[in-house]
Protein backbone atom coordinates (compact mmCIF):
# COMPACT_ATOMS: atom_id res chain seq x y z
CA UNK A 1 0.00 0.00 0.00
CA UNK A 2 2.90 2.30 0.85
CA UNK A 3 4.73 1.84 -2.45
CA UNK A 4 1.96 3.32 -4.68
CA UNK A 5 1.66 6.36 -2.40
CA UNK A 6 5.43 6.78 -2.40
CA UNK A 7 5.40 6.45 -6.22
CA UNK A 8 2.84 9.28 -6.49
CA UNK A 9 4.87 11.37 -4.08
CA UNK A 10 8.13 10.82 -5.90
CA UNK A 11 6.62 11.65 -9.28
CA UNK A 12 4.87 14.73 -7.87
CA UNK A 13 8.17 15.90 -6.36
CA UNK A 14 9.89 15.44 -9.70
CA UNK A 15 7.03 17.25 -11.50
CA UNK A 16 7.49 20.26 -9.20
CA UNK A 17 11.22 20.24 -9.73
CA UNK A 18 10.65 19.98 -13.53
CA UNK A 19 8.36 23.03 -13.39
CA UNK A 20 11.04 24.97 -11.54
CA UNK A 21 13.60 23.95 -14.16
CA UNK A 22 11.54 25.74 -16.82
CA UNK A 23 10.67 28.71 -14.63
CA UNK A 24 10.44 31.38 -17.33
CA UNK A 25 8.20 29.42 -19.65
CA UNK A 26 5.91 28.20 -16.88
CA UNK A 27 5.62 31.57 -15.15
CA UNK A 28 4.66 33.22 -18.45
CA UNK A 29 2.07 30.52 -19.03
CA UNK A 30 0.64 30.82 -15.50
CA UNK A 31 0.57 34.63 -15.88
CA UNK A 32 -1.47 34.64 -19.08
CA UNK A 33 -3.64 31.77 -17.86
CA UNK A 34 -4.34 33.59 -14.57
CA UNK A 35 -5.26 36.76 -16.45
CA UNK A 36 -7.88 35.00 -18.54
CA UNK A 37 -9.38 33.20 -15.53
CA UNK A 38 -9.33 36.49 -13.61
CA UNK A 39 -11.25 38.35 -16.32
CA UNK A 40 -13.88 35.64 -16.81
CA UNK A 41 -14.26 35.02 -13.07
CA UNK A 42 -14.60 38.77 -12.43
CA UNK A 43 -17.37 38.90 -14.96
CA UNK A 44 -19.16 35.93 -13.42
CA UNK A 45 -18.82 37.27 -9.87
CA UNK A 46 -19.95 40.72 -10.90
CA UNK A 47 -23.01 39.69 -12.86
CA UNK A 48 -24.03 37.17 -10.19
CA UNK A 49 -23.61 39.73 -7.42
CA UNK A 50 -25.65 42.32 -9.31
CA UNK A 51 -28.41 39.83 -10.00
CA UNK A 52 -28.48 38.91 -6.33
CA UNK A 53 -28.65 42.57 -5.38
CA UNK A 54 -31.54 43.04 -7.79
CA UNK A 55 -33.38 40.05 -6.34
CA UNK A 56 -32.80 41.36 -2.79
CA UNK A 57 -34.13 44.71 -3.88
CA UNK A 58 -37.26 43.20 -5.30
CA UNK A 59 -37.98 40.96 -2.32
CA UNK A 60 -38.86 44.14 -0.46
CA UNK A 61 -40.61 45.73 -3.43
CA UNK A 62 -44.42 45.75 -3.66
CA UNK A 63 -46.19 43.26 -5.94
CA UNK A 64 -47.23 46.08 -8.22
CA UNK A 65 -46.49 49.78 -8.59
CA UNK A 66 -49.07 52.04 -10.20
CA UNK A 67 -47.78 55.20 -11.84
CA UNK A 68 -49.71 57.99 -13.44
CA UNK A 69 -48.70 58.97 -16.96
CA UNK A 70 -49.07 62.36 -18.59
CA UNK A 71 -47.97 62.63 -22.22
CA UNK A 72 -46.04 59.40 -21.81
CA UNK A 73 -44.12 60.71 -18.81
CA UNK A 74 -44.35 59.73 -15.16
CA UNK A 75 -46.41 62.24 -13.13
CA UNK A 76 -47.55 62.38 -9.48
CA UNK A 77 -50.65 60.33 -8.81
CA UNK A 78 -53.65 61.58 -6.73
CA UNK A 79 -53.71 59.87 -3.33
CA UNK A 80 -57.49 59.53 -3.72
CA UNK A 81 -56.96 56.88 -6.40
CA UNK A 82 -55.57 54.62 -3.71
CA UNK A 83 -59.02 54.22 -2.19
CA UNK A 84 -60.57 53.30 -5.54
CA UNK A 85 -57.88 50.72 -6.25
CA UNK A 86 -58.22 49.25 -2.78
CA UNK A 87 -61.86 48.54 -3.62
CA UNK A 88 -60.86 46.26 -6.52
CA UNK A 89 -61.38 42.56 -5.69
CA UNK A 90 -58.16 40.79 -4.74
CA UNK A 91 -56.29 43.92 -3.66
CA UNK A 92 -55.07 43.56 -0.12
CA UNK A 93 -53.36 46.87 0.46
CA UNK A 94 -52.59 50.10 -1.38
CA UNK A 95 -49.97 52.48 -0.13
CA UNK A 96 -49.36 55.95 -1.57
CA UNK A 97 -45.57 56.30 -1.78
CA UNK A 98 -43.79 59.58 -1.65
CA UNK A 99 -40.24 59.59 -2.98
CA UNK A 100 -37.92 61.39 -5.34
CA UNK A 101 -34.32 61.91 -6.35
CA UNK A 102 -32.09 64.46 -4.73
CA UNK A 103 -29.04 65.44 -6.75
CA UNK A 104 -26.09 66.12 -4.51
CA UNK A 105 -23.75 68.46 -6.39
CA UNK A 106 -20.89 67.86 -3.94
CA UNK A 107 -20.73 64.10 -4.55
CA UNK A 108 -22.08 64.21 -8.08
CA UNK A 109 -24.69 61.52 -7.50
CA UNK A 110 -28.43 61.05 -7.15
CA UNK A 111 -29.71 60.07 -3.74
CA UNK A 112 -33.13 58.49 -3.26
CA UNK A 113 -35.29 60.41 -0.76
CA UNK A 114 -38.28 58.47 0.50
CA UNK A 115 -41.06 59.13 2.98
CA UNK A 116 -41.43 56.67 5.82
CA UNK A 117 -44.48 56.32 8.07
CA UNK A 118 -42.37 54.66 10.75
CA UNK A 119 -43.44 56.32 14.03
CA UNK A 120 -39.91 56.15 15.43
CA UNK A 121 -38.67 58.41 12.65
CA UNK A 122 -38.71 61.90 14.15
CA UNK A 123 -39.52 65.12 12.34
CA UNK A 124 -36.52 66.89 10.80
CA UNK A 125 -34.55 63.68 11.18
CA UNK A 126 -33.36 61.18 8.61
CA UNK A 127 -32.37 57.55 8.35
CA UNK A 128 -29.63 57.18 5.77
CA UNK A 129 -28.03 54.35 3.87
CA UNK A 130 -24.42 53.34 4.38
CA UNK A 131 -23.40 54.77 1.00
CA UNK A 132 -24.80 58.18 1.94
CA UNK A 133 -23.09 58.05 5.33
CA UNK A 134 -19.81 57.13 3.65
CA UNK A 135 -20.08 59.88 1.04
CA UNK A 136 -21.07 62.58 3.52
CA UNK A 137 -18.77 61.21 6.22
CA UNK A 138 -21.46 61.42 8.88
CA UNK A 139 -22.50 59.22 11.77
CA UNK A 140 -25.61 58.95 13.91
CA UNK A 141 -26.35 62.21 15.69
CA UNK A 142 -24.63 64.40 13.08
CA UNK A 143 -26.44 67.05 11.09
CA UNK A 144 -26.72 66.99 7.32
CA UNK A 145 -27.81 69.82 5.08
CA UNK A 146 -29.98 69.28 2.00
CA UNK A 147 -30.78 72.04 -0.46
CA UNK A 148 -34.53 72.63 -0.44
CA UNK A 149 -36.85 73.46 -3.34
CA UNK A 150 -36.41 77.20 -2.79
CA UNK A 151 -32.65 76.93 -2.75
CA UNK A 152 -32.29 77.25 0.99
CA UNK A 153 -30.50 74.56 2.97
CA UNK A 154 -32.59 72.43 5.32
CA UNK A 155 -30.91 70.73 8.25
CA UNK A 156 -31.71 67.16 9.28
CA UNK A 157 -30.39 65.10 12.16
CA UNK A 158 -29.03 61.65 11.26
CA UNK A 159 -31.14 59.49 13.53
CA UNK A 160 -30.08 56.10 12.16
CA UNK A 161 -27.76 54.55 9.59
CA UNK A 162 -29.55 51.74 7.77
CA UNK A 163 -27.92 48.32 7.85
CA UNK A 164 -29.03 46.05 5.08
CA UNK A 165 -28.05 42.69 3.66
CA UNK A 166 -27.72 44.41 0.34
CA UNK A 167 -26.06 47.79 0.02
CA UNK A 168 -27.70 48.24 -3.34
CA UNK A 169 -31.12 48.32 -1.60
CA UNK A 170 -30.28 51.04 0.85
CA UNK A 171 -26.91 52.52 -0.06
CA UNK A 172 -28.24 55.77 -1.59
CA UNK A 173 -31.41 55.96 0.52
CA UNK A 174 -32.54 58.85 2.75
CA UNK A 175 -35.71 58.21 4.73
CA UNK A 176 -37.65 61.10 6.28
CA UNK A 177 -41.18 61.86 7.38
CA UNK A 178 -43.80 62.60 4.63
CA UNK A 179 -44.02 66.21 5.84
CA UNK A 180 -40.29 66.68 5.43
CA UNK A 181 -40.31 65.11 1.95
CA UNK A 182 -43.08 67.49 0.86
CA UNK A 183 -41.17 70.44 2.34
CA UNK A 184 -37.90 69.44 0.69
CA UNK A 185 -39.36 68.97 -2.81
CA UNK A 186 -42.36 71.29 -2.49
CA UNK A 187 -44.46 68.25 -3.27
CA UNK A 188 -48.19 69.14 -3.52
CA UNK A 189 -50.47 67.76 -0.84
CA UNK A 190 -52.92 65.14 -2.12
CA UNK A 191 -50.45 63.75 -4.61
CA UNK A 192 -47.99 60.86 -4.27
CA UNK A 193 -45.12 59.62 -6.43
CA UNK A 194 -46.81 56.28 -7.08
CA UNK A 195 -49.03 53.67 -5.48
CA UNK A 196 -47.72 50.37 -4.12
CA UNK A 197 -50.31 47.61 -4.50
CA UNK A 198 -50.18 44.28 -2.67
CA UNK A 199 -52.45 41.41 -3.74
CA UNK A 200 -53.69 38.55 -1.57
CA UNK A 201 -52.93 36.11 -4.37
CA UNK A 202 -50.02 37.13 -6.63
CA UNK A 203 -51.53 35.09 -9.51
CA UNK A 204 -54.38 37.61 -9.67
CA UNK A 205 -51.99 40.51 -10.29
CA UNK A 206 -52.40 40.60 -14.12
CA UNK A 207 -56.19 40.72 -13.71
CA UNK A 208 -55.94 43.46 -11.09
CA UNK A 209 -53.57 45.42 -13.36
CA UNK A 210 -56.06 45.15 -16.23
CA UNK A 211 -58.87 46.42 -14.00
CA UNK A 212 -56.76 49.38 -12.82
CA UNK A 213 -55.98 50.40 -16.42
CA UNK A 214 -59.65 50.06 -17.29
CA UNK A 215 -60.68 52.24 -14.39
CA UNK A 216 -57.84 54.74 -14.67
CA UNK A 217 -56.65 54.89 -18.29
CA UNK A 218 -53.87 57.36 -17.44
CA UNK A 219 -52.09 54.88 -15.12
CA UNK A 220 -49.36 52.33 -15.81
CA UNK A 221 -49.20 49.30 -13.50
CA UNK A 222 -45.75 47.71 -13.27
CA UNK A 223 -45.55 44.15 -11.92
CA UNK A 224 -42.65 42.98 -9.78
CA UNK A 225 -42.02 40.04 -12.14
CA UNK A 226 -41.64 42.49 -15.05
CA UNK A 227 -39.05 44.52 -13.15
CA UNK A 228 -37.16 41.38 -12.23
CA UNK A 229 -37.17 40.26 -15.87
CA UNK A 230 -35.89 43.65 -17.00
CA UNK A 231 -33.06 43.61 -14.44
CA UNK A 232 -32.05 40.10 -15.42
CA UNK A 233 -32.05 41.09 -19.08
CA UNK A 234 -29.99 44.21 -18.44
CA UNK A 235 -27.35 42.40 -16.39
CA UNK A 236 -27.24 39.46 -18.77
CA UNK A 237 -26.89 41.85 -21.68
CA UNK A 238 -24.10 43.77 -20.02
CA UNK A 239 -22.35 40.52 -19.10
CA UNK A 240 -22.83 39.24 -22.64
CA UNK A 241 -21.36 42.42 -24.09
CA UNK A 242 -18.24 41.93 -22.00
CA UNK A 243 -18.01 38.28 -23.01
CA UNK A 244 -18.03 39.29 -26.67
CA UNK A 245 -15.30 41.86 -26.04
CA UNK A 246 -13.30 39.32 -24.08
CA UNK A 247 -13.80 36.66 -26.72
CA UNK A 248 -10.77 37.80 -28.64
CA UNK A 249 -8.62 37.72 -25.48
CA UNK A 250 -9.80 34.22 -24.65
CA UNK A 251 -9.15 33.08 -28.20
CA UNK A 252 -5.63 34.49 -28.02
CA UNK A 253 -5.12 32.57 -24.77
CA UNK A 254 -6.37 29.33 -26.31
CA UNK A 255 -3.90 29.70 -29.19
CA UNK A 256 -1.11 30.56 -26.72
CA UNK A 257 -1.93 27.67 -24.38
CA UNK A 258 -2.34 25.23 -27.26
CA UNK A 259 1.00 26.23 -28.66
CA UNK A 260 2.72 26.00 -25.28
CA UNK A 261 0.98 22.83 -24.26
CA UNK A 262 1.16 20.83 -27.46
CA UNK A 263 4.56 21.95 -28.67
CA UNK A 264 6.72 19.29 -27.14
CA UNK A 265 10.29 20.54 -27.41
CA UNK A 266 13.13 18.30 -28.59
CA UNK A 267 14.52 18.45 -25.05
CA UNK A 268 11.25 17.27 -23.55
CA UNK A 269 11.08 14.41 -26.07
CA UNK A 270 14.61 13.41 -25.22
CA UNK A 271 13.81 13.58 -21.51
CA UNK A 272 10.85 11.26 -21.99
CA UNK A 273 13.18 8.89 -23.85
CA UNK A 274 15.70 8.99 -21.01
CA UNK A 275 13.02 8.34 -18.40
CA UNK A 276 11.68 5.38 -20.34
CA UNK A 277 15.14 3.95 -20.93
CA UNK A 278 15.93 4.00 -17.21
CA UNK A 279 12.78 2.13 -16.30
CA UNK A 280 9.83 4.52 -16.35
CA UNK A 281 6.61 3.16 -17.83
CA UNK A 282 4.42 5.20 -20.19
CA UNK A 283 1.93 5.56 -17.33
CA UNK A 284 4.68 7.03 -15.09
CA UNK A 285 5.56 9.60 -17.75
CA UNK A 286 1.87 10.45 -18.23
CA UNK A 287 1.44 10.82 -14.47
CA UNK A 288 4.45 13.15 -14.34
CA UNK A 289 3.11 15.35 -17.12
CA UNK A 290 -0.39 15.23 -15.65
CA UNK A 291 0.98 16.58 -12.35
CA UNK A 292 2.88 19.31 -14.22
CA UNK A 293 -0.23 20.36 -16.20
CA UNK A 294 -2.42 20.18 -13.10
CA UNK A 295 -0.06 22.33 -11.04
CA UNK A 296 0.04 24.98 -13.79
CA UNK A 297 -3.68 25.02 -14.45
CA UNK A 298 -4.79 24.78 -10.81
CA UNK A 299 -2.38 27.52 -9.74
CA UNK A 300 -3.66 29.74 -12.53
CA UNK A 301 -7.30 28.87 -11.80
CA UNK A 302 -7.06 29.50 -8.05
CA UNK A 303 -5.01 32.69 -8.48
CA UNK A 304 -7.39 33.98 -11.16
CA UNK A 305 -10.48 33.26 -9.07
CA UNK A 306 -8.93 34.75 -5.92
CA UNK A 307 -7.83 37.90 -7.74
CA UNK A 308 -11.27 38.22 -9.33
CA UNK A 309 -12.92 37.89 -5.90
CA UNK A 310 -10.74 40.67 -4.49
CA UNK A 311 -11.27 42.79 -7.60
CA UNK A 312 -15.06 42.50 -7.58
CA UNK A 313 -15.88 42.46 -3.89
CA UNK A 314 -13.13 44.64 -2.46
CA UNK A 315 -12.47 47.01 -5.36
CA UNK A 316 -16.00 47.07 -6.82
CA UNK A 317 -14.79 45.63 -10.16
CA UNK A 318 -13.00 48.88 -10.86
CA UNK A 319 -11.56 47.57 -14.14
CA UNK A 320 -14.92 47.09 -15.85
CA UNK A 321 -17.38 49.07 -13.80
CA UNK A 322 -18.00 51.59 -16.56
CA UNK A 323 -18.97 48.87 -18.97
CA UNK A 324 -20.98 46.87 -16.49
CA UNK A 325 -22.66 49.22 -14.03
CA UNK A 326 -24.14 51.87 -16.24
CA UNK A 327 -23.72 55.54 -15.49
CA UNK A 328 -26.24 57.10 -13.13
CA UNK A 329 -28.46 54.32 -11.89
CA UNK A 330 -26.26 53.00 -9.13
CA UNK A 331 -24.79 56.12 -7.57
CA UNK A 332 -23.33 56.58 -5.06
CA UNK A 333 -20.56 53.95 -4.95
CA UNK A 334 -21.49 50.78 -3.16
CA UNK A 335 -19.83 47.54 -2.24
CA UNK A 336 -21.20 44.31 -3.66
CA UNK A 337 -22.06 41.53 -1.26
CA UNK A 338 -19.87 38.48 -2.07
CA UNK A 339 -21.74 35.72 -3.88
CA UNK A 340 -20.12 32.47 -4.99
CA UNK A 341 -22.03 30.43 -7.52
CA UNK A 342 -20.71 26.87 -7.38
CA UNK A 343 -22.23 25.98 -10.72
CA UNK A 344 -20.61 28.89 -12.55
CA UNK A 345 -17.25 28.20 -10.90
CA UNK A 346 -17.48 24.55 -11.88
CA UNK A 347 -18.22 25.54 -15.49
CA UNK A 348 -15.27 27.93 -15.43
CA UNK A 349 -13.07 25.16 -14.01
CA UNK A 350 -14.08 22.73 -16.73
CA UNK A 351 -13.66 25.36 -19.45
CA UNK A 352 -10.14 26.33 -18.39
CA UNK A 353 -8.43 23.52 -16.48
CA UNK A 354 -9.64 20.48 -18.42
CA UNK A 355 -8.85 21.69 -21.97
CA UNK A 356 -5.36 22.71 -20.90
CA UNK A 357 -4.67 19.42 -19.15
CA UNK A 358 -6.00 17.49 -22.15
CA UNK A 359 -3.93 19.61 -24.54
CA UNK A 360 -0.78 18.79 -22.60
CA UNK A 361 -1.47 15.08 -22.28
CA UNK A 362 -2.15 14.22 -25.95
CA UNK A 363 1.36 14.92 -27.31
CA UNK A 364 2.96 13.48 -24.16
CA UNK A 365 0.93 10.31 -24.59
CA UNK A 366 2.12 10.05 -28.19
CA UNK A 367 5.74 10.53 -27.14
CA UNK A 368 5.45 8.29 -24.09
CA UNK A 369 3.98 5.27 -25.86
CA UNK A 370 6.75 4.82 -28.43
CA UNK A 371 9.79 2.65 -27.71
CA UNK A 372 12.31 4.48 -25.51
CA UNK A 373 15.02 4.30 -28.14
CA UNK A 374 12.71 5.94 -30.71
CA UNK A 375 11.83 8.73 -28.30
CA UNK A 376 15.54 9.29 -27.65
CA UNK A 377 16.53 9.31 -31.29
CA UNK A 378 13.74 11.69 -32.42
Amino acid at each position, binding site marked *: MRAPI*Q*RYRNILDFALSSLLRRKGRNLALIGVYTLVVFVIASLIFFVQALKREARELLVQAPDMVVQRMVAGRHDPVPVAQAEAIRAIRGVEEVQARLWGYYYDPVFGGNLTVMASEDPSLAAEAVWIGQGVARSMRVKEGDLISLRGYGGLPILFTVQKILAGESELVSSDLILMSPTDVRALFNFPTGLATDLAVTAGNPRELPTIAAKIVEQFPDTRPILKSEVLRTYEAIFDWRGGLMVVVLGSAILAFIIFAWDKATGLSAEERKEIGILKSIGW*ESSDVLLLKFWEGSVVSLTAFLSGVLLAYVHVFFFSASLFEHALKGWSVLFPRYQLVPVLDGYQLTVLFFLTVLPYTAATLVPIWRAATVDPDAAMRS
Partner: protein
Amino acid sequence: MIELIEVMKTYQAGLATPFTAVDRVSLTIPDARLTVLKGPSGSGKTTLLTLIGCMARPTSGRIHLHGLPAGTLPALQAGDSVEITSLPERFLTTIRRRTFGFIFQQFNLVRGISVLENVLLPTYPMGLDHQEVEGRAVQRLEGLGLARLIRSSVDRLSGGEAQRVAIARALINDPAVIIADEPTAHLDSRLSEDFMELMGEFRAAGKTLLITSHDPIVYGSPLADLVVEMRDGQIVAGA
Protein backbone atom coordinates in the same frame (compact mmCIF):
# COMPACT_ATOMS: atom_id res chain seq x y z
CA MET B 1 23.02 -15.56 -19.96
CA ILE B 2 21.48 -13.70 -22.88
CA GLU B 3 20.74 -15.63 -26.03
CA LEU B 4 19.84 -14.07 -29.38
CA ILE B 5 18.44 -16.23 -32.18
CA GLU B 6 18.22 -14.86 -35.74
CA VAL B 7 17.39 -11.36 -34.50
CA MET B 8 16.51 -8.77 -37.15
CA LYS B 9 15.57 -5.14 -36.83
CA THR B 10 14.25 -3.31 -39.88
CA TYR B 11 13.25 0.35 -39.68
CA GLN B 12 10.47 1.64 -41.96
CA ALA B 13 9.51 -1.93 -42.76
CA GLY B 14 6.80 -2.00 -45.42
CA LEU B 15 7.69 1.47 -46.69
CA ALA B 16 9.57 2.42 -49.85
CA THR B 17 12.96 2.68 -48.12
CA PRO B 18 13.28 -0.03 -45.48
CA PHE B 19 16.57 -0.15 -43.60
CA THR B 20 17.83 -3.26 -41.84
CA ALA B 21 20.04 -2.22 -38.92
CA VAL B 22 20.47 -5.71 -37.44
CA ASP B 23 20.44 -8.67 -39.79
CA ARG B 24 19.84 -12.22 -38.50
CA VAL B 25 22.15 -11.98 -35.51
CA SER B 26 22.58 -15.04 -33.30
CA LEU B 27 24.74 -14.58 -30.23
CA THR B 28 25.21 -15.83 -26.68
CA ILE B 29 26.38 -13.39 -24.02
CA PRO B 30 27.77 -15.18 -20.98
CA ASP B 31 26.98 -14.17 -17.38
CA ALA B 32 29.54 -12.29 -15.27
CA ARG B 33 31.74 -11.62 -18.28
CA LEU B 34 32.63 -8.52 -20.26
CA THR B 35 31.43 -8.72 -23.86
CA VAL B 36 32.42 -6.02 -26.35
CA LEU B 37 30.53 -5.33 -29.59
CA LYS B 38 32.96 -3.59 -31.90
CA GLY B 39 32.53 -2.17 -35.35
CA PRO B 40 32.30 1.05 -37.32
CA SER B 41 29.45 3.57 -37.03
CA GLY B 42 26.26 2.21 -38.59
CA SER B 43 27.25 -1.40 -38.06
CA GLY B 44 24.20 -2.03 -35.85
CA LYS B 45 25.92 -2.21 -32.45
CA THR B 46 23.69 0.32 -30.71
CA THR B 47 20.52 -1.09 -32.25
CA LEU B 48 21.49 -4.52 -30.98
CA LEU B 49 22.02 -3.07 -27.49
CA THR B 50 18.56 -1.46 -27.49
CA LEU B 51 17.00 -4.80 -28.51
CA ILE B 52 18.83 -6.71 -25.76
CA GLY B 53 18.03 -3.97 -23.23
CA CYS B 54 14.26 -4.15 -23.95
CA MET B 55 14.22 -0.60 -25.31
CA ALA B 56 12.95 -1.69 -28.72
CA ARG B 57 11.47 -4.85 -30.21
CA PRO B 58 13.10 -6.82 -33.01
CA THR B 59 11.27 -7.17 -36.32
CA SER B 60 11.88 -10.91 -36.12
CA GLY B 61 13.91 -13.41 -34.12
CA ARG B 62 14.00 -14.31 -30.45
CA ILE B 63 15.86 -13.00 -27.40
CA HIS B 64 16.02 -15.17 -24.28
CA LEU B 65 17.13 -14.00 -20.87
CA HIS B 66 18.25 -16.89 -18.73
CA GLY B 67 18.69 -17.01 -15.00
CA LEU B 68 16.57 -14.00 -14.07
CA PRO B 69 16.19 -13.42 -10.33
CA ALA B 70 12.90 -14.53 -8.74
CA GLY B 71 10.13 -11.93 -8.79
CA THR B 72 11.41 -10.08 -11.86
CA LEU B 73 8.07 -10.97 -13.46
CA PRO B 74 4.95 -12.41 -11.83
CA ALA B 75 5.28 -16.13 -11.08
CA LEU B 76 8.91 -16.19 -12.21
CA GLN B 77 11.11 -18.58 -10.24
CA ALA B 78 14.82 -17.97 -9.68
CA GLY B 79 16.81 -19.15 -12.70
CA ASP B 80 13.82 -19.21 -15.07
CA SER B 81 14.19 -18.07 -18.69
CA VAL B 82 12.09 -15.46 -20.43
CA GLU B 83 11.63 -14.83 -24.13
CA ILE B 84 11.32 -11.05 -24.18
CA THR B 85 10.35 -10.15 -27.75
CA SER B 86 6.65 -10.91 -27.26
CA LEU B 87 6.23 -9.45 -23.77
CA PRO B 88 3.87 -6.49 -23.24
CA GLU B 89 5.45 -3.10 -22.58
CA ARG B 90 4.72 -3.23 -18.86
CA PHE B 91 6.80 -6.41 -18.41
CA LEU B 92 9.56 -5.09 -20.65
CA THR B 93 9.77 -2.02 -18.44
CA THR B 94 9.96 -4.18 -15.33
CA ILE B 95 12.80 -6.22 -16.83
CA ARG B 96 14.57 -3.07 -18.02
CA ARG B 97 14.24 -1.57 -14.56
CA ARG B 98 15.41 -4.59 -12.55
CA THR B 99 17.82 -6.36 -14.85
CA PHE B 100 19.63 -3.72 -16.88
CA GLY B 101 21.62 -0.62 -16.08
CA PHE B 102 22.31 1.66 -19.04
CA ILE B 103 25.28 3.93 -19.65
CA PHE B 104 24.64 6.00 -22.75
CA GLN B 105 27.12 7.51 -25.18
CA GLN B 106 25.82 11.03 -24.46
CA PHE B 107 25.33 10.06 -20.77
CA ASN B 108 21.68 11.19 -21.10
CA LEU B 109 21.50 12.90 -17.75
CA VAL B 110 18.43 15.07 -17.15
CA ARG B 111 19.60 18.66 -17.26
CA GLY B 112 18.72 21.22 -14.62
CA ILE B 113 18.54 18.84 -11.66
CA SER B 114 21.18 17.69 -9.21
CA VAL B 115 23.56 14.77 -9.45
CA LEU B 116 21.69 12.99 -6.65
CA GLU B 117 18.28 13.48 -8.31
CA ASN B 118 19.62 12.08 -11.57
CA VAL B 119 20.87 8.99 -9.80
CA LEU B 120 17.54 8.56 -7.98
CA LEU B 121 15.39 8.97 -11.11
CA PRO B 122 15.12 5.23 -11.96
CA THR B 123 13.76 4.52 -8.46
CA TYR B 124 10.94 7.09 -8.48
CA PRO B 125 8.25 4.94 -10.14
CA MET B 126 9.15 1.96 -7.96
CA GLY B 127 7.80 3.62 -4.83
CA LEU B 128 10.78 2.59 -2.71
CA ASP B 129 11.56 4.09 0.66
CA HIS B 130 13.13 7.43 -0.19
CA GLN B 131 15.63 7.54 2.66
CA GLU B 132 16.89 4.05 2.02
CA VAL B 133 17.35 4.67 -1.72
CA GLU B 134 18.97 8.03 -1.13
CA GLY B 135 21.45 6.40 1.24
CA ARG B 136 22.28 3.85 -1.43
CA ALA B 137 22.73 6.60 -4.07
CA VAL B 138 25.02 8.64 -1.83
CA GLN B 139 27.09 5.52 -1.15
CA ARG B 140 27.41 4.83 -4.90
CA LEU B 141 28.39 8.42 -5.64
CA GLU B 142 30.95 8.41 -2.84
CA GLY B 143 32.34 5.14 -4.19
CA LEU B 144 32.79 6.80 -7.58
CA GLY B 145 34.57 9.80 -6.08
CA LEU B 146 31.64 12.19 -6.53
CA ALA B 147 30.88 12.95 -2.88
CA ARG B 148 31.51 16.68 -3.21
CA LEU B 149 29.22 16.96 -6.28
CA ILE B 150 26.14 15.24 -4.86
CA ARG B 151 24.06 18.44 -4.65
CA SER B 152 25.57 20.10 -7.74
CA SER B 153 23.61 20.54 -10.94
CA VAL B 154 24.65 18.07 -13.65
CA ASP B 155 25.03 21.02 -16.05
CA ARG B 156 28.32 21.91 -14.35
CA LEU B 157 30.01 18.51 -14.62
CA SER B 158 32.99 17.60 -16.76
CA GLY B 159 32.72 14.70 -19.23
CA GLY B 160 34.34 12.21 -16.86
CA GLU B 161 32.18 13.33 -13.92
CA ALA B 162 29.01 13.13 -16.01
CA GLN B 163 29.89 9.61 -17.02
CA ARG B 164 30.44 8.53 -13.44
CA VAL B 165 27.05 9.99 -12.54
CA ALA B 166 25.57 7.95 -15.42
CA ILE B 167 27.31 4.86 -14.01
CA ALA B 168 25.92 5.55 -10.52
CA ARG B 169 22.45 5.90 -12.04
CA ALA B 170 22.86 2.63 -13.96
CA LEU B 171 23.77 0.85 -10.72
CA ILE B 172 21.11 2.30 -8.42
CA ASN B 173 18.76 -0.70 -8.82
CA ASP B 174 21.67 -3.14 -8.55
CA PRO B 175 21.13 -4.65 -12.04
CA ALA B 176 22.61 -7.96 -13.13
CA VAL B 177 23.57 -6.60 -16.56
CA ILE B 178 25.29 -3.30 -17.33
CA ILE B 179 24.94 -2.07 -20.90
CA ALA B 180 27.24 0.72 -22.09
CA ASP B 181 26.99 2.33 -25.52
CA GLU B 182 30.29 3.84 -26.73
CA PRO B 183 31.17 4.81 -23.15
CA THR B 184 34.62 6.20 -23.98
CA ALA B 185 33.59 8.23 -27.03
CA HIS B 186 33.80 11.50 -25.10
CA LEU B 187 36.67 10.64 -22.78
CA ASP B 188 40.42 11.05 -23.10
CA SER B 189 42.73 8.02 -22.84
CA ARG B 190 43.31 8.32 -19.09
CA LEU B 191 39.60 8.57 -18.31
CA SER B 192 38.91 5.70 -20.75
CA GLU B 193 41.37 3.50 -18.88
CA ASP B 194 39.81 4.53 -15.56
CA PHE B 195 36.44 3.52 -16.98
CA MET B 196 37.71 0.09 -18.00
CA GLU B 197 39.22 -0.39 -14.56
CA LEU B 198 35.81 0.32 -13.07
CA MET B 199 34.22 -2.19 -15.44
CA GLY B 200 36.80 -4.73 -14.26
CA GLU B 201 35.61 -4.17 -10.69
CA PHE B 202 31.99 -4.72 -11.72
CA ARG B 203 32.92 -7.89 -13.57
CA ALA B 204 34.73 -9.11 -10.49
CA ALA B 205 31.55 -8.38 -8.53
CA GLY B 206 29.63 -10.75 -10.83
CA LYS B 207 27.95 -8.27 -13.15
CA THR B 208 27.43 -9.11 -16.81
CA LEU B 209 28.85 -6.32 -18.95
CA LEU B 210 27.95 -5.56 -22.53
CA ILE B 211 29.77 -2.67 -24.17
CA THR B 212 29.72 -1.32 -27.71
CA SER B 213 32.85 0.47 -28.83
CA HIS B 214 35.24 1.09 -31.63
CA ASP B 215 37.88 2.31 -29.18
CA PRO B 216 40.94 0.01 -28.95
CA ILE B 217 41.25 0.82 -25.23
CA VAL B 218 37.95 -1.01 -24.80
CA TYR B 219 38.00 -3.89 -27.26
CA GLY B 220 41.76 -4.41 -26.83
CA SER B 221 41.50 -4.49 -23.04
CA PRO B 222 42.62 -7.71 -21.33
CA LEU B 223 39.37 -7.44 -19.34
CA ALA B 224 37.28 -8.16 -22.45
CA ASP B 225 36.23 -11.82 -22.34
CA LEU B 226 34.45 -11.81 -25.66
CA VAL B 227 34.83 -9.37 -28.57
CA VAL B 228 32.16 -9.56 -31.26
CA GLU B 229 32.78 -7.67 -34.47
CA MET B 230 29.83 -6.29 -36.44
CA ARG B 231 29.51 -4.77 -39.89
CA ASP B 232 26.38 -3.84 -41.85
CA GLY B 233 24.14 -5.28 -39.18
CA GLN B 234 25.77 -8.69 -39.17
CA ILE B 235 28.34 -10.41 -36.96
CA VAL B 236 31.54 -10.88 -38.90
CA ALA B 237 33.81 -12.22 -36.17
CA GLY B 238 33.90 -13.35 -32.56
CA ALA B 239 30.51 -15.00 -31.97
